[in-house]
C-alpha cells in the first residue's frame, strides 16, 4: 500500500488549482430555463478552449487521457475552487453518452458526436426509464419499428432529465415486438429536434422542471444511429449504466469533505434558537465530526477503487456501495444543516444557488432514487458482492 502521488500527479493538481482559481465563473448559475443550460454550455466551452474538457476520456477521442487518480485530483480541485457543479446539463453527454459511444459507437458516430460533446455544443439526455419501467428497466415498452433504413419510435419515456435542453438522447427501445425483457432492445441516438417528439416537463418537489415526460409519435431515426447491435441494446445500456454507477458520482464523493468543512464553519457563526452557537452544541459537534469521518472514508474508498481500476483496467463491483454511502452522507449533512439553520432553511424559492443547503436537502431524494434507487443498490451488493441467493 502507498499514498504517493507522482510528480506528474502533483504538477497536474497544481496546474488545475491555478487555472480554476483564475477561471471559475464569478456569476451565479441561473436556477432554471434556457439561460441555465447556456451557462453550462459556456462553462464547458471554456474548459474545452483551455484544454480541460474530457477529464475521463482517452486522448485519441479528444479527452485528457488522465489516469483515474488524476481525475480524483481534478474533482477535488473543482470542489475546492467551488467550480460550477459537474452534475448539470452537460453531465449525461460527458459522463455516459460520450463514453458509451467510445466503447460501442461506430467510427462515424464518434467522429460526429464526440467533439460536439467536449466543446459543449451538444447536450444529451438519457431516455431509458418509462412510466412502468424504472428499477425494472428491462420491462420497457417504447416501440421501435424497423422500416427500411429507419427505426420508427412510438411510446413514452419518463423522468428524462434536461430533455428540454438536450440536442441528443440515449434512447432505449424495444425493436423486437415479440421479445421479452433484456432481449430485443436497441440503443439509438435520437436527435431531439426530430418531428414527432413532444416534451412535457414534470414539476418536482425542488420547485423546478428539470425532468420530463417525452412522447414519441412515429419518430423516424436512421438505423445508422444504432449504438451496438439492433436487438442487442441491453449490452450497450449496461455499458451506460456501469459508467453512471461507477465514477458517475465521483464529484459528490470528493466534494463531501469540503461541504462538511463549510457546514462546520457555518456552525461557528450560527446561533441556535436558545442563543447558543451551533458549534457549541454537543450533538451538532458530534454529527459534524462523524460526517467528516465518513467523508474521509469515502475519499479513501474512492482512491482505493481508482487505484485498483488504474491497475486492472476494470472497475470493481463497488459502485453500488459508494452510491449508498455517499447518498446517505449527503442527506445526513443537509438534514443537520437544516436543523442548525432554523427558519432560514425554509425560505426556499427554488433557486439552487441562493439556497444551496435547502436545495441539496431536497436533492438528496433525487440522488438516492435516480440512477438506481438505494434499494436496488442493496440488491446489487447482495447479488454481486455477497453472492446471496437471488430475490428475483
Amino acid at each position: 500500500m502507498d499514498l504517493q502521488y507522482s510528480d506528474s500527479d502533483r504538477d497536474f493538481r497544481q496546474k488545475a488549482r491555478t487555472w480554476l482559481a483564475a477561471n471559475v465563473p464569478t456569476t451565479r448559475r441561473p436556477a432554471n430555463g434556457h439561460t441555465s443550460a447556456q451557462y453550462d454550455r459556456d462553462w464547458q466551452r471554456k474548459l474545452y478552449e483551455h484544454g480541460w474538457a474530457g477529464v475521463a476520456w482517452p486522448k485519441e477521442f479528444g479527452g485528457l487521457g488522465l489516469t483515474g487518480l488524476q481525475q480524483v485530483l481534478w474533482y477535488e480541485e473543482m470542489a475546492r475552487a467551488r467550480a460550477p457543479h459537474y452534475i448539470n446539463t452537460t453531465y449525461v453527454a460527458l459522463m455516459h453518452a460520450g463514453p458509451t459511444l467510445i466503447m460501442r459507437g461506430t467510427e462515424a458516430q464518434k467522429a460526429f458526436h464526440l467533439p460536439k460533446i467536449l466543446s459543449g455544443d451538444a447536450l444529451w439526455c438519457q431516455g431509458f426509464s418509462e412510466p412502468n419501467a424504472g428499477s425494472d428497466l428491462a420491462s420497457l415498452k417504447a416501440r421501435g419499428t424497423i422500416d427500411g433504413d429507419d427505426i420508427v419510435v412510438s411510446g413514452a419515456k419518463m423522468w428524462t432529465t434536461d430533455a428540454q435542453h438536450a440536442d441528443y438522447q440515449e434512447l432505449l427501445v424495444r425493436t423486437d415486438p415479440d421479445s421479452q425483457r433484456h432481449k430485443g432492445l436497441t440503443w439509438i441516438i435520437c436527435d431531439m429536434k426530430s418531428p414527432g417528439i413532444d416534451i412535457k416537463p414534470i414539476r418536482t418537489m425542488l420547485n423546478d422542471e428539470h425532468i420530463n415526460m417525452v412522447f414519441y409519435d412515429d419518430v423516424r431515426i436512421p438505423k445508422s444511429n444504432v449504438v451496438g447491435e439492433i436487438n442487442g441494446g441491453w449490452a450497450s445500456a449496461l455499458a451506460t449504466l456501469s459508467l453512471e454507477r461507477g465514477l458517475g458520482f465521483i464529484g459528490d464523493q470528493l466534494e463531501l469533505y469540503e461541504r462538511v468543512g463549510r457546514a462546520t464553519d457555518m456552525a461557528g457563526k450560527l446561533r441556535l434558537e436558545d442563543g447558543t452557537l451551533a458549534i457549541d452544541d454537543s450533538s451538532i459537534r458530534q454529527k459534524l465530526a462523524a460526517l467528516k469521518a465518513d467523508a474521509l472514508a469515502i475519499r479513501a474508498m474512492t482512491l482505493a477503487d481508482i487505484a485498483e481500476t488504474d491497475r486492472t483496467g476494470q472497475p470493481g463491483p463497488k459502485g453500488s456501495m459508494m452510491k449508498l454511502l455517499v447518498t446517505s452522507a449527503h442527506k445526513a449533512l443537509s438534514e443537520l444543516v437544516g436543523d442548525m439553520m432554523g427558519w432560514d432553511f425554509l425560505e426556499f424559492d427554488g433557486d439552487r444557488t441562493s439556497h444551496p443547503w435547502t436545495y441539496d436537502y431536497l436533492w438528496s431524494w433525487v440522488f438516492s432514487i435516480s440512477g438506481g434507487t438505494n434499494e436496488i443498490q442493496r440488491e446489487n451488493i447482495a447479488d454481486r458482492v455477497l453472492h446471496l441467493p437471488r430475490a428475483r
Partner: protein
Amino acid sequence: MYLAPDGDELGIAQAAAEFLAEAMSIERLHRAACADMSADLRHALGGMGWFALALPEDAGGSGLSAVEHALFFREVGRQCGPVDVLAQCLAATIVEDVTLRSAIANGDAGVALAVEDGTRLRIFGSENAAFMLQLGRDRSDLYPLENTASEPRASLDPATSIRLLDRVPTAVASDTGDCAWRLGQLGTAAMLVGIAEASLDQIVDYAKVRETFGKKIGSWQAVRHPCADMAVRLEAARAQLWFAATAMKEGRGDAGVHLDAAKYLANQAALANADTNIQLHGGIGVTDEHHAHLYLKHALVLARLFGGRREVLGRLLHAEVED
C-alpha cells in the same frame, strides 16, 4: 497510490490468518478459562515473531511497518484475539533494555494493558502477566505487576479479563511521544475491522443455507438489505484503516487525523455488524455456543480502548488533512 494489501503484504496477512486460526481460534472462547493469552499461546506467538513485527530489525524485530501491523491485527480481530496480544507488541516498542525487550518480544514475559479509570487503573490481560503497559498520547509506561495486588472484576467479554488496581507501582520503562499509542489505536481499529468482517462472513454463510418458508433466508430482502449495509460499513471502515496505516507508514503529518477517523469508523462498523449478525441468525444467534455474541462483546471492549466515540469525534471536528 495503492490502497489494498499487495505483494508481500498479502503473504503476511495470509500467514497470520493461518497461524491464528490454528493457535488462537475463536473456538477457544467456548472452553473454560479462555480469557487473555495463556503462557503457551504467548510463547507460540512470540516464537513466530508476531510480537516483533513492527520492531526495527536492529532491535531484534522484523522491521515491518504500520501496514503489516494493521494486517496482523485484523486477523487477530477475526478470532476475537485478546487485548494482551496488542499490549505485548506495543511494550516491545518502548523498552530500551535489550534483555527485557527480547523477553517481551519472544513471549517469556507477559504484558497486560492498563487504562486509567478515575484514580485507579483498569487492567486487561492475563493475571500471569509480569508487566502492564499504560499508554497515553504523549507518554507510555511499563510497570511491574508481580507482587501487586489487584481486584478481579467480572467481565462481559469472555476474551478479556478485567482487574482494578489502586496503587501504581514504579515504572520499569517509559517512553515519550505517541508512537506506541498510535500503533495501539491502529491495532485496535484493525481488530474491530476484523470483527466487522467476521460478523458479515458469518451471516452471509448462514443466509445461504438456512431456509424458512421454503426459501433460503438470504433471498428475503429483510435479510439481504441489512447484509448489504454491513458490507458497506465494513468497506468504508476498511478503506479508512488502510489509509491510516499507510499514512502512518509514510510519516504523513495528518496520520493522527486519519487514525482517529479509522478508529471511529471501525467502532461503528464492528458494533453494528455484530448486532445485525445476531439479529439475522434468529434464535440460534443468542445462544452461548454460537460465536455471534463473542464478536459483539469483544467489540464493546475494543471500541472503548484507544479512543471511544466521543473522544475521537472531539478531536476530529477541527482537524486538518493534507492533499
